[in-house]
Every structure is written in C-alpha cells, then in structure tokens.
C-alpha cells in the first residue's frame, strides 16, 4: 500500500533547508578564515587529508576530487586524499585496532605537520573522526571540522583550529550545508592562493 503524498509535504521538506543555509551565510567570516589558513598550508606544500563515516565518507571523497580535479578550467590541482576510500585498509585497521583508530592510525602514518586534517561528522559524535582530529592537532596539522547539530564531542575538543557547525538537527540538511561549505572552501582557498601577496609570511598575522 503506497501512501498519497501532498505538495504541502514537499514544501515542508524544502522549507527545512532555508534557515540552516541562511546561518551558513552568517558564519561567512569564519569560513573565510578557515580558507585563509588552508591556503597558507597549501602554499607551504601541505596536503589536505579528509575523513568521515557513512555519507560523510562520500563527502570526503567529494572534497578530494574538488581539489585534485577542479571543475573550473585553469585552477591548479592541489594535493588531497581521503582516508575513507580504501575498504581493505579501513576494515583491516578496524579489525586490529578498533573502529576508533580507523582514521587516526592512517593519519599518523601518512600525514606531515604542514598538512590539513579535515574531519566531517554530521552530529559531531563520530569517535574515529574525533580521535583523528586530536592526533592531527597533536602533530601540528591545521585542523578543520565540519559538524552539525550541537557539534557533539568534536566541538568540545580543545585546540582545534576551525570547527564549522551546520545549524540543523536533521543529518540530511547538515549534509547539504556541508556540501555548500566545502564547495566554498575550495573556491576561496583558490582566491587566497591566487593572491600570493597575502600568503607571503610577512603579511601573515
């Protein structure tokens, strides 16, 4: 038995997106500062390391393809990798070291201090994303987190550089705000990157 659906239901679903998207616009300066810090890291030869679970694993892969193969012709490729793509590695580490270490173990092996760690968690409560961000912080990486809801345990980690919160309790809406956020991150990193003057150490504040 398939239920009838109404136009009003569709309208309500779309309306649920409006306020969280407006809130992203209100956080624009914070987003811009994250982009500036990311551009500085790329400028120094750093690499972007992304990780997340479930739908956020797909986002990690999406972010990597944005940076490595830009959609806008003429933009340079920037180095990026996802720690969530390799099922053999992920499941192997998880079996030996437990789920919580699945990203941190890879990060400790692969990342350099000049790199950028970008962790995505729709509710901020993914223990393996949290642990990898802590490992990244301790190793001197730039740490950026995309979270949602109340920010969860990730928002309570001290010393992370940028924690960007999508203001919704609906994980689907959080994801949509994250997609816009990382599209903007990519575009604005290139804005800074194409202005070498602002990346020169003498103007860094």
């Amino acid at each position, binding site marked *: 038995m398939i239920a009838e659906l109404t136009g009003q239901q569709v309208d309500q679903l779309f309306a649920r997106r409006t306020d969280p998207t407006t809130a992203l616009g209100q956080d624009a300066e914070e987003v811009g500062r994250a982009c500036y810090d990311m551009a500085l890291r790329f400028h120094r030869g750093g690499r972007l390391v992304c990780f997340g679970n479930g739908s956020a694993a797909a986002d990690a892969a999406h972010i990597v393809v*944005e940076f490595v193969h830009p959609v806008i012709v003429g933009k340079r490729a920037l180095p990026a990798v996802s720690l969530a793509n390799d099922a053999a590695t992920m499941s192997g580490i998880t079996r030996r070291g437990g789920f919580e270490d699945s990203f941190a173990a890879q990060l400790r092996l692969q990342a350099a201090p000049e790199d950028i760690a970008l962790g995505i968690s729709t509710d901020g409560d993914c223990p393996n994303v949290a642990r990898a961000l802590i490992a990244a912080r301790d190793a001197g990486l730039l740490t950026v987190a995309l979270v949602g809801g109340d920010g969860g345990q990730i928002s309570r980690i001290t010393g992370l550089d940028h924690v960007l919160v999508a203001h919704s309790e609906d994980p689907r809406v959080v994801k949509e705000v994250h997609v*816009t956020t990382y599209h903007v991150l990519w575009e604005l990193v290139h804005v800074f990157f194409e202005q070498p003057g602002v990346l020169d150490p003498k103007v860094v504040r």
Partner: protein
Amino acid sequence: MSGVESLYPFLYSGVSDVEAVLADVTRSTLEKSEEITRLRADVLELYRGRLIECARAMARSFAAGGRLFAFGNGGSSTDAQAVVELFQNPGAPARPLPAEALATDIAVLSALANDVSFDVVFARPLAASGRAGDIAVGLSTSGGSANVLRAFEEATRRGMLTIGLAGYDGGKMAEADTIDHLFVMPSSSVHRIQEAQTTTYNTLWELTQLALGTPGSAQAQQ
C-alpha cells in the same frame, strides 16, 4: 571585468591586505548561500508534482522487492554513494532499503574501462544485476555523461524505473527517452547544481519513506 574579477575586486587591485580579501570572501560566501536558497526554490516550483510522482514510483518498486542502483562520475559518484548509504542506513525510525553504488567497485570499473570502454562502466553492471522493477538513479551535472546515458539505455531495456539528476539545461539527458523522471537543476554553477541535486535526492528519499508509511526524519523534526 570578468565574473571572477567582479566577485573579488581586491584580487586584481594589487592590494595584498589579508583583511580586505577576507571581507571579499565573506561577502562571496553570503552570496552563495543566498544563491543556493533561490535555486532550491526554483527546483521546488519546477518539480513539486514530479517529486511526488517519482517517490511513489520508487516506493512501489521497493514494496515489490526492487533494488536501487546509483551511478555518476567524479563528485556525482560520491553523490551516488551518498544516495546508497542513505537508503540502506537511514537510522531509525526509517526503513532500510536495498541499494548499490556502481562506481565503488574499482575492480569492475577499471576492468571495464581498461578492456572495453569507459562508456560501459555503469551499463555492464546493470546488465548483469538489474532486474525489471529495479531503480536506476543516474547523476550528471552536465547531463552529458556518456556512461550515464548508456546506463539509462540498459536500465530501460531491462524494464527498470529510471531517474535522472542533471543541471544546466539537462543536456543529452533532457533529449533521452530513457529517463522516466528527470530533474534538471536550472543553474550554470556545477557547485550549486550538486547542492540542489543533494536536496533533490534527500527529498526523494524522505518522500519514498513517507509513501511506504515509514517516517524518515519527519518525526525527529517535530
């Protein structure tokens, strides 16, 4: 002034002041958040009825034992994965539904690309696994991906329900007679198109759950 130049005037003025560039990018981010909100409103006006029709067809398919296959290239391949993860692992109280992302099996994908052609990487797995009554969801921002179009041809031959997400003017997907439900995001920005497509498939998922009588996140919202 080029489009980029008008968006970021300081970039081209020789000014190397961080705060000035930050002011530019802050304004740009605000504009983008407004742009995607407008695009979602356009999509809603264009497709309110189509979303209902499509979700009810998907619900009928799942109720009859159908499975969903999702495919796309690049960023769209990650959207295909997200679609599959959403249908299979939505969290309570929503009902998990069977789905498969065709770009995630690198062995099959690279074998077909290497031995035959990249155009068949999605059509072949559908020929092997797709059954009448299954669902094919193909994503392409341009609407012109040859392998996505080939997959829709195969899906139609097999009697599957076919759903396409495209952008710009829909490209070749808009001309194809192999797509039962086509959603074209009316934008020329790849990024905004992908964002509106994400809203479209998330909404289709939630409407499918409602059509099956199993609330998605609707209850959690109240």
